[in-house]
């Protein structure tokens, strides 16, 4: 079943077309990779899906409702969460607060109860704290909950960003280059974590990644973009053999970064 679908999406800034007539879909329960050379428009696709940009043509559907005129916060409420290519944590907030605030959409107590601190408010706060700790425990950041986010080492920041996205309890998780800047050890760990999220939390995942080993290692299906267009898709094996892909991407000498 289609969870997310881009239908003939186009996005242009001024005269520049970043994405043109793109069709793309993610099925329920899938773990999909999106690859392509630098500047192919992958991050732009994420920005379209999360409502940061509105498509100038075409439409985006999530569980059969259109996303194209929604704000990012509304998209999030529907169940799409994301991480960012260059980590965007709430740097001066504690690790715990980062995860706490991400549960925002599940808060039902209005402003008055928050200000007046009614009992139901305390109950809800307790739930939020419990959940936040649970998630942190899950990604292995329990010890760091009191630290300010910008003080964490790089790898942990990446994990915290994922934890924060998970706190919104998404159906679909968009990961933007989660392995960037990690050494092979860390990458190994990361792959395990992503697979665990997928398996245990039953979250569908779409992931942008440069590192072919990561993509090929965990993805069920891979889509390849170049110049804002989809040039191939299929199982990792199929894609690796695709002539177009080899020409645009794999043909170039790939080095581990």
């Amino acid at each position: 079943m289609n969870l997310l679908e881009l239908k003939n999406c186009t996005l242009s800034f001024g005269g520049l077309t970043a994405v043109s007539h793109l069709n793309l879909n993610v099925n329920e329960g899938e773990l999909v990779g999106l690859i392509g050379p630098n500047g192919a428009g992958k991050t732009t696709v994420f920005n379209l899906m999360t409502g940061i940009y509105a498509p100038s043509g075409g439409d985006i559907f999530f569980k059969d409702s259109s996303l194209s005129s929604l704000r990012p916060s509304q998209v999030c409420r529907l169940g799409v969460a994301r991480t960012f290519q260059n980590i965007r944590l709430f740097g001066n907030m504690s690790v715990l607060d980062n995860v706490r605030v991400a549960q925002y959409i599940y808060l039902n107590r209005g402003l008055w109860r928050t200000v007046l601190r009614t009992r139901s408010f305390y109950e809800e706060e307790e739930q939020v704290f419990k959940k936040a700790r649970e998630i942190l425990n899950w990604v292995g950041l329990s010890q760091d909950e009191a630290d300010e986010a910008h003080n964490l080492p790089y790898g942990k920041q990446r994990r915290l960003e994922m934890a924060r996205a998970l706190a919104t309890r998404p159906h679909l998780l968009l990961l933007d280059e989660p392995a960037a800047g990690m050494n092979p050890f860390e990458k190994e760990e990361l792959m395990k974590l992503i697979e665990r999220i997928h398996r245990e939390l039953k979250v569908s995942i779409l992931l942008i990644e440069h590192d072919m080993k990561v993509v090929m290692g965990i993805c069920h299906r891979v889509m390849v973009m170049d110049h804002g267009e989809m040039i191939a898709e299929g199982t990792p094996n199929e894609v690796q053999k695709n002539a177009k892909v080899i020409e645009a991407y794999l043909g170039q000498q790939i080095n581990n970064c």
Partner: protein
Amino acid sequence: MLKINNLIVSYGNIKALQGVSLEVKEGEIVTLIGANGAGKTTLLKTISGLIAPVSGTIYYSKNEKNSSLNHMAPHEIVRLGVSQVPEGRMVFANLSVAENLDLGAFLRRDAREVRESLDKAFQLFPRLKERVTQNAGTLSGGEQQMLAIARALMAKPKLLLMDEPSLGLAPILVKEIFETIRKINQEGLSILLVEQNAHLALQLAHRAYVLETGKIVLEGPARELAMNEEVKKAYLGA
């Protein structure tokens, strides 16, 4: 020619460099490899005077004259002959290519010599000559990298610090850039090269250091390190 002893740098209460010592000898290409956040860029920034170290010494010698780079302003360090090609290129996007190059020679007074350097830079990167009046911001990534290198060369350095010249470039361009690095080294320039792309860096360099969370964990001739099992596992993914 560059000698760093037990350098400690911290941002607030986080120690970014925890006692790094390394050396670059005359005519060498030395590479520094390591993952993101290991402190490579911090090290280069500290050498260039953008960050003040907590402790440790940085010595630079030219013509048997020893000088400490600690507490020196960035432009004074450039005047001594240590230039840097910064991470992300940092070309002055709102200035033309010619103006960028002219600023590279900001500290030099002799117009004729500057002119010579400029010719040499164009020789090295003919593409820049074609785009001399264009704003640097409109150049492609590769061209910006060339401009950044050319600009650093305009100061007539003896030691060139390069921070991830391959970042975000197509592999074919990366090759070109690395060829250039080899060329300028052969003309007598010492180079300290910071790279994530360990493969290429180790092929190019004479010696290498491996930096991990602010500490040097391995050092030696590049070729040896390329064979080292640990390095292979950690950085070459083999």
